[in-house]
């Protein structure tokens, strides 16, 4: 019961955080907190098999799937705060609170009788006992589950599959396109220049210098340039001057 009273406030707080988290990634992490705490509560309640399955399947597989999809969709895809239906948030909160209040009051008034406990049911060990029931009484449901999982896997493949609408360009076509671009727009047909390699600077954020001393924009990634983390040519030149001063010949 100690575990319960420690974990219950944590779980409720994390679940409430799920409601208010602006970013979906934070919501996923809070959900992980709830799920791991639930796993501990399963372990407390003589369900070691479900404890393992909860951590492996829910926290391990399902939440990772959520995070993968979040990465595909864009991590900073935050929720919009604008209400499309007037009073939508207010009324749904009222409805939810009424529902929860009814549920909690109802549960609190019911007497559940004496707790029998799982000591006799688990006497061969939890996993063998579950297997015993699963493969006898529930064997049909278990087999149907396999059909469900195969259907879900096929469905996900069909939904995630993207048909190629244009034929894949061959090497010859790509080469012809490069030469065509050069003829029409003067675009350099060869590979882009590598970043600058100097005595003191050798990194992707260091632009290569053209013969006239200016930095070549083609030698650095557009992303780095947009972030503004590119070293400017005068900085590099300053370092070189420092080397030229007397005593700095190290």
């Amino acid at each position, binding site marked *: 019961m100690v575990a319960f009273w420690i974990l219950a406030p944590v779980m409720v707080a994390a679940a409430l955080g799920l409601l208010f988290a602006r970013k*979906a990634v934070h*919501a996923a992490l809070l959900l992980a907190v709830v799920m791991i705490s*639930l796993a501990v509560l399963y372990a407390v309640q003589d369900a070691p098999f479900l404890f393992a399955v909860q951590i492996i399947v829910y926290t391990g597989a399902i939440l990772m799937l959520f995070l993968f999809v979040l990465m595909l969709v864009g991590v900073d895809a935050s*929720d919009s705060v604008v209400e499309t239906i007037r009073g939508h948030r207010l009324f*749904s909160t009222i409805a939810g*609170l009424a*529902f929860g209040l009814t549920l909690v009051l109802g*549960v609190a008034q019911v007497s559940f*009788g004496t707790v029998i406990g799982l000591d006799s049911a688990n006497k061969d060990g939890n996993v063998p006992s*579950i297997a015993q029931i699963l493969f006898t009484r529930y064997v049909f449901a278990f087999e149907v589950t396999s059909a469900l999982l195969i259907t879900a896997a096929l469905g996900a493949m069909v939904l995630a599959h993207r048909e190629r609408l244009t034929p894949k360009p061959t090497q010859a076509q790509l080469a012809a396109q490069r030469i065509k671009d050069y003829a029409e727009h003067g675009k350099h047909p060869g590979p882009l220049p590598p970043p600058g390699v100097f005595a003191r600077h050798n990194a992707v954020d260091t632009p290569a210098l053209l013969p006239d001393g200016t930095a070549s924009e083609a030698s650095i990634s557009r992303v780095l340039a947009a972030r503004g983390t590119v070293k400017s040519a005068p900085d590099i030149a300053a370092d070189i001057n420092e080397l030229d001063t007397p005593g700095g010949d190290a």
Partner: protein
Amino acid sequence: MSVTPFIVLSAILFTIGCVGVLTRRNAIVVFMCVELMLNASNLALVTFSRANGNLDGQIAAFFVMVVAAAEVVVGLAIIMTIFRSRRSASVDDASLLKY
């Protein structure tokens, strides 16, 4: 160990998940709230399994987990497909079926 606190916690978590489904607009967060509701019901199942002294509740919770896994796989694939065509994961934007 009494049963009531566990069931009350399960009810609270279920309610929070319910409110989340009603109020949140990001489809992925809505999905997480559905998962929270499934987890809350699992807690109730495991608790009742202990109260009644047989393992059927744990088996039911196990099946809920399996179905939840299948549901998440298909649901997230649907969200991805919608995102690919509409560039948005908001449930409000997927309203073309209405017209």
